[in-house]
């Protein structure tokens, strides 16, 4: 109801999804899969043709169109939640139910990561079904410009470094706590401009050398 009013007020057309839904989604998925399988590496996402309503970025839109559908409750942070255009875009293209509580979400989309709610407020999965946890997509990330953290774990030969931001000051402590929960815990996808990186719960953050 309110989306219809919104559309007539602004007379903005609904932004388009993938131009080639089958192959664009496949290509984007392979990038996400490689990012998840090789924590700390940057993978390229082709975002041409996507002009989603702000503050949704083309890269996050590509991830959303690739992974979300009516089976995946999605939680949005405040800037997204207050944009009717974003909600219409998500509802039309994915059909994902938008939920109010982080713990109910299969996916969480965060465009203002500096004000991220604690990772512990998302669904951590259960000991018997750890796969039922939330995957958190953090938007507006810049790679290589922030203090790097050292990573260790599956998918990483010896060690890897990840430098990304902006993030809240307590973020990396929360990620360490998250990996101590293994096999429970959330998985993180960092989304920059045309590139992504990921941290599954299995990755350990090594204490920074003094």
């Amino acid at each position, binding site marked *: 109801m309110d989306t219809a009013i919104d559309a007539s007020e602004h007379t903005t057309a609904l932004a388009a999804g993938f131009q080639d*839904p*089958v*192959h664009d*989604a*496949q*290509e984007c*998925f*392979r990038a*996400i*899969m*490689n990012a*998840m*399988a*090789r924590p700390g590496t940057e993978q390229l996402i082709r975002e041409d043709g996507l002009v989603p309503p702000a503050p949704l970025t083309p890269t996050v839109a590509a991830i959303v169109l*690739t*992974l*979300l*559908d009516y*089976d*995946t409750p999605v939680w949005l942070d405040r800037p997204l939640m207050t944009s009717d255009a974003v909600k219409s875009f998500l509802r039309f293209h994915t059909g994902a139910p938008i939920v109010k509580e982080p713990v109910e979400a*299969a996916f969480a989309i965060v465009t203002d990561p500096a004000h991220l709610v604690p990772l512990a407020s998302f669904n951590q999965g*259960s*000991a*018997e*079904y*750890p*796969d039922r946890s939330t*995957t958190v997509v953090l938007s507006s990330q810049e790679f290589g410009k922030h203090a790097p953290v050292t990573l260790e*774990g*599956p*998918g*990483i*030969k010896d060690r890897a470094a990840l430098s990304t931001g902006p993030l809240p000051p307590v973020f990396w402590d929360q990620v360490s706590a998250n990996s101590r929960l*293994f*096999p429970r815990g959330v*998985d993180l996808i960092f989304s920059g401009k045309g590139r992504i990186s990921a941290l*599954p*719960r*299995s990755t350990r953050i090594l204490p920074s050398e003094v």
Partner: protein
Amino acid sequence: MNDTAQIFDQGEYNFAYLDEQTKRMIRRAILKGIAIPGYQVPFASREMPMPYGWGTGGVQVTASILGKDDCLKMIDQGSDDTTNAVSIRGFFEKTAGVRTTYETSEATVIQTRHRIPEKGLREDQVLVFQVPIPEPLRFLEPRETETRKMHALEDYGLMHVKLYEDIAKNGHIATTYAYPVKVNDRYVMDPSPTPKFDNPKIDQMPALQLYGAGREKRIYAIPPYTKVKSLDFDDYPFEVQKFDKPCGLCGAENVYLDEVILDDQGGRMYVCSDSDHCEERRANGHLGPMAADPAATHFAGGASEETVQ
């Protein structure tokens, strides 16, 4: 020869057969599987146009990751030209129109039934396993509710009792295939019925490994460079099969060999199970002790003719 390409051009199927919603569901399961190495992620396995037991799990995983630029290799017990490999390769040629190959190094996606290629895999390759029974504890505890609890509590004592009973009965661990492994020091996992000869290759493999079980509706994964340890005891360490003869055709040692019966007089030979590895070695001039044997000629000749096509 080219009917498969024509069938693909008719556009009768979505790319790689599965509909997009199914692919998304499987893709999400794959991501969770990668994030929790060795944990079996439940997924809504679809009915495929082939019976359970023909690799429906592997086929669904491959269909969900495959892109139009991928090059696909299919192997069945190490061989590219046995029934299961031929039919699934044909399936993807028809429904996805992707390039296929026999060569391990050329492939970007390799779907396998119960072998890992002898040639080391690279970081840009993905190995997809067809899995019949994904639950390593299933024959020890038939109830899913119980095995799920055992995984949750990391309670794997029963599996060690089973291996111990092997030793008590046979003097050694008599499990030769589907040999249980512990992934990333956490989950005990069934590496599908590959011979235990292949277990060391799973450990720290540069390629991503995805496992799909269609009938049992489970997907699991091992990310690249992950610690995978075959279960054993301090005094009975894990050992792989050893062969006292080299491959009869290419003379390779330290590879997994198949026994081939040549006649009804007791004639037999041992040849590489990995047919691509064997052909590549022969093309490079390696000859085994039976390469010139008339009984083996049609076997070797037939195989190399296939590659020329």
